[in-house]
């Protein structure tokens, strides 16, 4: 069965304190791995797609990396406006749809 596990469930950081969020996955052939950001009361917002091990994508203070078993979302020198829930999702080769993890709630303290 395809699975996506995110850790930690919640993370509190001081402004400027860099850290990483983890997404471990088990799928029968990975077509793509996605990261989304979700603010309270809103729908998820697409951030990145990663396709193969070794690939990296960057956007402002965020960098996503991918290995054969997991992905990391690195947050460098975060600001309070980076506070949100970050969702990871995977697309298996045999499917028309993606599976979401439960997310990591990130809180950046000023």
């Amino acid at each position, binding site marked *: 069965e395809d699975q996506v596990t995110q850790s930690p469930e919640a993370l509190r950081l001081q402004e400027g304190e860099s850290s990483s969020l983890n997404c471990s996955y088990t799928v029968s052939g990975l077509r793509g791995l996605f990261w*989304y950001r979700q603010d309270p009361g809103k*729908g*998820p917002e*697409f951030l990145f797609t990663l396709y193969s091990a070794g690939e990296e994508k960057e956007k402002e203070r965020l960098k996503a990396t991918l290995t054969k078993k997991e992905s990391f979302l690195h947050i460098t020198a975060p600001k309070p406006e980076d506070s949100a829930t970050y969702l990871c999702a995977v*697309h298996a080769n045999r499917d*028309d*749809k993606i599976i*979401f993890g439960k997310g990591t709630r990130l809180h950046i303290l000023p």
Partner: protein
Amino acid sequence: NAGVTQTPKFRILKIGQSMTLQCTQDMNHNYMYWYRQDPGMGLKLIYYSVGAGITDKGEVPNGYNVSRSTTEDFPLRLELAAPSQTSVYFCASSHGTGAYGYTFGSGTRLTVV
């Protein structure tokens, strides 16, 4: 460009009532999806559609029905509402299978009492 529009934003239903959650997209996306999100449980796929006239069940379809008569619209029907259907519902669309990401609506918060 409105993207994905969901209505209503909030709704309270009594047990046994029925309702339709509306979803419209203006991006000419062929794929559309309905998810529910419960606290601490992540997004669960209810139904999806790969094009007009084609729908398929997701992970948690029981108690729901969908139709896709046009590319733009993908309504979700709740029949005989139950407290277990209290949740936040999100509609999403994508071009193809989502390699460029899904575009989500802002959600409908439904409470069944």
